[in-house]
């Protein structure tokens, strides 16, 4: 079998840090080849080498058997290598067609010939089953559609080998299904695909072969048909990984968090949470399952004081906290792992050590009469960094420089260390690899076993099913059902989340 891409013994260093150490990747024509590794294992570096953004210190790249020297992305384009980036590179105010032809516009007498271009785009999109309106504006179409535009861009440039960088990270389950269909069509039309991912499910579903890298080193390439998720996970992490989180029975005691008739409007003034009731008891984890956009964000923001609620009541251990300032709520014993760690969780320009005291800097021993005590702050930070296995060169490194998983571990360390009565974890494992996910789930359960209350919000059903002791299903701003994870199925949850069993479920809750 002929290889379309061969990357042999690639080595890439960044000022003393070896990102790729002797990695070999061989992709056959017409296959979907997965590149699997933890966050920070060196996947993106390797692909950027292939795409001409980085020059390797050692190693050889061959395209269709011929040695090539890819010094910039234009050469990669000419060789038929196209990349679909994780963060889309699109101009929001341009139309689909304008984005696709950007940089290689078809012109007629110095004027862009948009008609011909649209025709061309339409032809390509029909051929590969990428239904998209060539005249639509990027800002008006969904994320899934935008990704199709990215794919079309590479096809328009004549790509034969397509690199997908974590393509499912931003998609809804429905869009993921459609993407998988698109990947299959592309293969049928003779393309080859490299899929960068750390999601094992996807690999098992669509890929032919998988190359695993770990901490910058190539671990090996295996056929997907001859392996299983457990083996892949242990190859990736370097030890055995347990998927179903081990936990004992919950021993719930009295209510810690009690929400009654909570009503919250979203930023556009639309009612997002409509008279929601929910309670979380000491020693249990309540998971909120629901499709994105059913009021989860507004619910968390109202509980944590980031958004004003219209009416209702939120009590922590009997004390009303609704519409208090975030500081007062924090001091009432609430900790919050925010959904968006870059927006809310961290001051990225601050050293990771100073981020560790973001809510407590004004208290002893971190400051005295308004003057910071940096020695105590960094002592604390060092302790947390060690305890929560945050991988960082040192405590003075800006939070920005840490990988997503390590940023998240730092936030969790900070929040759990305050020993809160109620911990709100909003999508705590989004974008993380299996090793980090396992770690975070363990910490949540530990917190529960200490007799604290945990409220978990996640769009990953697996996570909700695995970790929660009770599942509350949210639909259009209301809790429509409360189910026991041991007695429910993904199908049932899916139906509840879609609102189809709303009525019956509503009755159940009242029982």
């Amino acid at each position: 079998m002929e290889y379309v891409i061969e990357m042999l013994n690639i080595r890439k260093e960044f000022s003393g840090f070896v990102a790729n150490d002797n990695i070999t990747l061989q992709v056959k024509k017409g296959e979907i080849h997965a590149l699997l590794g933890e966050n920070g294992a060196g996947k993106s570096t390797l692909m950027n080498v292939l795409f001409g953004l980085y020059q390797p210190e050692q190693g050889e790249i061959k395209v269709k058997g011929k040695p090539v020297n890819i010094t910039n992305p234009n050469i990669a384009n000419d060789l038929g290598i196209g990349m679909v980036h994780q963060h889309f590179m699109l101009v929001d105010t341009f139309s689909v067609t304008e984005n696709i032809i950007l940089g290689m516009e078809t012109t007629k007498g110095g004027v862009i010939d948009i008609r011909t271009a649209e025709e061309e785009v339409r032809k390509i999109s029909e051929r590969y089953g990428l239904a998209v309106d060539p005249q639509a504006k990027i800002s008006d179409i969904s994320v899934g559609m935008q990704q199709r535009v990215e794919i079309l861009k590479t096809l328009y440039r004549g790509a034969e080998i397509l690199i997908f960088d974590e393509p499912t990270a931003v998609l809804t389950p429905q869009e993921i299904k459609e993407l998988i269909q698109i990947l299959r069509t592309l293969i049928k039309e003779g393309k080859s695909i490299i899929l960068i991912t750390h999601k094992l499910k996807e690999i098992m579903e669509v890929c032919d072969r998988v190359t695993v890298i770990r901490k910058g080193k190539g671990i090996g390439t295996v056929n997907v048909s001859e392996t299983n998720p457990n083996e892949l996970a242990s190859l990736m992490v370097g030890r055995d990984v347990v998927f179903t989180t081990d936990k004992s029975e919950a021993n719930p005691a009295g209510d810690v968090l009690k929400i009654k008739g909570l009503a919250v409007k979203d930023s556009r003034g639309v009612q997002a949470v409509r008279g929601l009731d929910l309670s979380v008891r000491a020693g249990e984890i309540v998971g909120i399952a629901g499709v994105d956009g059913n009021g989860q964000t507004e619910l968390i923001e109202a509980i944590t004081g980031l958004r004003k609620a219209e009416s209702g009541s939120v009590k922590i251990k009997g004390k009303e906290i609704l519409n208090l300032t975030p500081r007062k709520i924090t001091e009432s014993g609430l900790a919050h792992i925010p959904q968006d760690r870059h927006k809310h969780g961290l001051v990225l320009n601050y050293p990771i050590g100073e981020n560790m005291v973001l809510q407590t800097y004004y208290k002893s021993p971190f400051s005295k009469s308004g003057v910071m005590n940096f020695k105590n702050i960094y002592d604390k930070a060092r302790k947390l960094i060690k305890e929560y296995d945050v991988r960082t060169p040192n405590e003075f490194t800006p939070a920005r420089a840490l990988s997503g998983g390590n940023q998240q571990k730092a936030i969790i360390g900070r929040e759990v260390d305050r020993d809160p009565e109620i911990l709100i974890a909003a999508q705590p494992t989004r974008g993380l690899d299996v090793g980090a996910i396992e770690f975070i789930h363990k910490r949540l359960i530990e917190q529960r076993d200490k007799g604290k209350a945990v409220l978990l919000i996640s769009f990953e059903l697996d996570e909700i099913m695995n970790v929660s002791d009770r599942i509350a299903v949210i639909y259009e701003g209301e809790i429509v059902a409360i189910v026991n994870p041991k007695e429910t199925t993904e199908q049932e949850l899916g139906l509840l989340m879609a609102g189809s069993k709303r009525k019956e479920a509503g009755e159940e809750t009242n029982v």
Partner: protein
Amino acid sequence: MSNRTKNILVPVIAVLLGILVGTIIMVASGYDAAAGYTALWNGAFGDVYFTGEVIRQVTPYILAGLAVAFAFRTGLFNIGVEGQLIVGWLAAVWVGVSFDLPKVIHLPLAILAAAAAGALWAFIPGYLKAKFRVHEVIVTIMMNYVALHVTNNVIRTVLSEGKERSENIADTASLRSPFFEGLTEYSRLHWGIFIAVICAILMWFILEKTTKGFELRAVGFNEHASQYAGMNVKNNIILSMVISGTFAGLAGAMEGLGTFGYTAIKSGFTGVGFDGIAVALLGGNTAIGVVLAAFLFGSLKVGALNMPLEAGIPNELVDIIIALIIFFVASSYIIRWFIQRMSKKGVK
């Protein structure tokens, strides 16, 4: 190369490039560049009188630079230093001419009045930003014009009877220093330089050492995370503008109580507040950087006055050199890129 060295190297290279291009312009316009720079040097350091004048000029530059830098470090762009300086100047002189008090009370009172006036002038854009998200750049620019014309009117109608300038301030409110004057052959050097240096230390202390500074900088970097962490974002935005305005008002006091001893109707801006933006930029928005950059700008400004006398070169050329330095600092990205390339080659 460490980041620290790079941060120092970039402004130094920018200054050298500015001087280099300035030389080319001088030569191209038919002037003797060597004579020009000699005259510039002599005009700043050739005589103790000139050096005294340099330090006198450096004083308001430091304070204006601190005002811009403080706001900038907390995520705000205070273009209104000029206006805050003008109202500070007026307030200082107003107190200076209106009261008859012993020096220990009169002088501090006049200085505090200037600080309060600057703070108030900056409070307005700070409040509008915090409350209604009105961009501070727009408001501060407009506040500059309001300050200019309001103070002119006050000078004409309140501080004098239709005259062009106020009376001289009472001696008890003056920063003038016979000691310094004797030391520098009767330059206008005054005690204000100590106030400026103390303010530089204060800014460093507030930003780097206090919990308030931790909050102010956090709000500047990421309002959302600051809110999440329980900080009061709105109050911090207002406070940051007020502190910035305080520095700017003090810069006005330096002019009113030190250099001039009176205030006069202005046909246009003093320029010190705008130069403060350049000083802050060149100084990397740090306290020590601002002091050094103010020293450079003060030397250039004062030294330039000697260029037409000694070398027959128009002193506008110095303004061009200053503009070029700012240009190169602003485009420091190019310099950084260049340094990176050079140091990479060095390793290989």
